[in-house]
């Protein structure tokens, strides 16, 4: 094997890598193919994949790439759905080796981690220390660094907000190879200007774009606001502004008592009204004992996908809601009574509802939630189909209208679909399941229509998946070219030679 590596090094396109003889570099097509694709099955190509083992390795690679104009794509664990990690030439920096949990500080409720720590591993380490980290994207086999680059969210975002809310500090290697250490609360924009001070003392001034972000859950384009914290620019920037090499995260004490339930409804309207009522009681209402941490919806079609694995789903159910509510032991009885009252008020099927007796059952309800996504994937693979799935969120008061319009659109087109999602956040995953190329093209048209509808109602085209390379045209439509150009200017300030994660968020032409 040593001989093979030698050969690879000889072929290496970046001379500086040769001097780091310990660094693994792969270019054998069989070995690197997993770095050329993501969970959306979007495919790309590259010259080689390098595996730095330290922040210094990354600095060396980036500096050399910046000098030679070599394009760099940073790879997480390939669980994304937008093509953001998929290279279109140049080299891939796989952060896989930077995978240590450096420290968990129980007293101060924070943790220092490297970017390639798996979210699932991090969460189980914390659990042993009676701590927890709220961001919980459905796919937990992802790298922490990537969850920051995409500002990932999940079911618990309903109560706790997205990843952004839990990032205290970041170390970022800028596309010039300079290091930037940013701590939340230390550096704010003034008059739409951010001044960043790098490790070498140079100053970079960034003009914050002036578009207004939707007030919904949102992960599309750079985070901006006239008085923004510098750290927020790098969270959700999809790797276009730098490579995250170390991060300090805020963690919380593990909730001891969690009410967990799946409630079935005999019509969708009752279920949607129930969600709306739970949201109103939970949000900005500290007096309310009802305080859901997760609030998710499944339509009848989604339930049909699950019934083989969960035979207790009542046959007549037209909709279901899964929810969790953390509580204090002393409030248990009052809480249960309040939930019974609310479920009955909205005609939820109280007799057939599922209630977790213990954490083992609570976990099985979480599995129920997670099963939807993989059952759909399984169905697609088995039938050799491609899905077209929305990721929109709209203002709460518009959600019902939006939801029914989307369903009408898809049903009128005669395309098979399932609907579910984080309805607590008015965030819909409507997965269209076209059965032919013609239907696929029609579904893509509908996707664009649904994005337009969301934007027209004051919503977003992407609430959590991000833009990557697959959704740029919709972002362009959402913000308009003027603001895409402002975003590209931010990138140019930090990446003057246009080398890093080119093609994410906006196309390369805006960097010329």
């Amino acid at each position, binding site marked *: 094997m040593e001989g093979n590596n030698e050969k690879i090094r000889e072929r290496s396109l970046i001379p500086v890598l040769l001097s780091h003889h310990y660094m693994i570099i792969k270019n054998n097509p069989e*070995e690197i193919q997993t770095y050329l694709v993501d969970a959306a099955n979007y495919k790309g190509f590259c010259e080689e994949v390098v595996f730095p083992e330290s922040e210094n390795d990354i600095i060396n690679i980036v500096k050399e790439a910046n000098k030679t104009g070599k394009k760099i794509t940073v790879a997480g664990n390939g669980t994304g759905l937008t093509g953001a990690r998929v290279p279109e030439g140049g080299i891939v920096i796989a952060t896989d080796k930077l995978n240590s949990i450096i420290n968990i500080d129980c007293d101060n409720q924070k943790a220092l981690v490297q970017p390639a720590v798996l979210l699932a591993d991090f969460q189980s380490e914390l659990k042993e220390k009676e701590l927890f980290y709220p961001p919980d994207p459905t796919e937990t086999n992802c790298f922490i660094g990537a969850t920051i680059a995409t500002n990932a969210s999940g079911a618990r975002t309903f109560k706790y907000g997205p990843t952004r809310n839990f990032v205290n500090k970041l170390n970022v290697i800028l596309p010039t190879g300079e290091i930037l250490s940013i701590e939340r609360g230390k550096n704010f924009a003034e008059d739409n200007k951010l001044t960043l001070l790098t490790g070498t003392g140079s100053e970079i001034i960034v003009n914050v774009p002036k578009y207004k972000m939707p007030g919904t859950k949102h992960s599309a384009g750079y985070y901006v606001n006239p008085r923004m914290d510098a750290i927020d620019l790098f969270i959700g920037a999809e790797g276009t502004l730098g490579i995250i090499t170390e991060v300090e995260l805020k963690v919380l004490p593990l909730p001891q008592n969690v009410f967990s339930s799946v409630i079935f409804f005999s019509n969708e309207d009752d279920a949607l009204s129930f969600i709306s009522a739970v949201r109103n009681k939970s949000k900005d209402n500290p007096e309310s004992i009802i305080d859901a941490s997760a609030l998710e919806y499944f339509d009848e079609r989604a339930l049909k996908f699950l019934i083989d694995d969960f035979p207790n789903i009542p046959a007549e159910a037209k909709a279901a809601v899964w929810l969790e509510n953390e509580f204090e032991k002393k409030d*248990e009885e009052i809480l249960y009574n309040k939930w019974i009252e609310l479920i009955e008020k909205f005609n939820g099927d109280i007799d057939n509802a599922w209630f977790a007796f213990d954490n083992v059952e609570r976990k099985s309800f979480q599995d129920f939630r997670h099963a939807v996504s993989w059952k759909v994937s399984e169905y697609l693979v088995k039938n050799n189909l491609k899905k077209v799935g929305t990721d929109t969120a709209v203002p709460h008061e518009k959600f019902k209208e939006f939801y029914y319009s989307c369903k009408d659109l898809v049903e009128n087109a005669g395309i098979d679909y399932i609907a579910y999602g984080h309805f607590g956040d008015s965030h819909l995953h409507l997965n269209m399941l076209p059965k032919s190329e013609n239907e696929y093209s029609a579904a893509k048209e509908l996707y664009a229509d649904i994005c337009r509808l969301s934007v027209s109602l004051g919503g977003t085209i992407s609430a959590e998946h991000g833009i990557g390379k697959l959704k740029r045209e919709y972002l362009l439509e959402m913000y308009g070219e003027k603001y895409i150009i402002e975003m590209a200017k931010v990138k140019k300030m930090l990446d003057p030679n246009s080398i890093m994660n080119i093609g994410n968020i906006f196309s390369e032409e805006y960097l010329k």
Partner: protein
Amino acid sequence: MKIAVCVSHVPDTATKVNVGAEGKSIDPNGVTYVVNPYDEFAIEEALKTKEKIGDGEVVAISVGPDANKETIRKALAMGVDSGVLLKDDQFRDSASVAKALAEEIKALGAELVFFGKQAVDYDNSVVGQMTAEYLGYNCISVVVDFKLDDRKVTCEREIEGGKEIVSTTLPVVITTQKGLNDPRYASLKGIMAAKRKTIEEKQPAAAENKVEIIKMKKPASKQPGKVLGSDATVVPELVRLLREEAKVI
């Protein structure tokens, strides 16, 4: 009619189990305990039977320490009417557990008794049958379909390579297998009611253990894997090792 369902409180199969310091028992520290999964089929079938008859009382019985109350409480939350803990902190073997259960079932006058086909802690798969023997009841084990028609019981049971249909009459002990039913989740009202109900504690009938645990140990941990390489050139070596070392081909 009184229906008894016998339940066991066992380590969750997903939990990491360690042997206690004295080398004869499971160390309960850090172990999550659950209702024995096969017993959930027994509870469900008892409840379904009661619902079908439209009358009757289902009583859950467990032998063991205070912690077993949690399992009884789950049965109550699912809809069981009452629970009895035959409290004993000491180790009891299968026969001794069966003896205690038989005495209690006799006292209750239950003629229909459900057990899980085995408990997933010690996996002896004998307590149901032994209890039937002590009671002088009929017994059908590993049941995947259960029908009660007046006093006649007809069951389908799993056997090696197939199924057989067996019939008998009450009184009977049934041990339940996966496939018999889909256990319900507890209802919220059930959970609330279960929290309020008191679980009757009783002294179990004395019985001598016929089995003594001499030593308990964990299986040898897996050998670390070997990485030969990552391309086609290592295949001949892989084949050689599979043939000569692992002896699997």
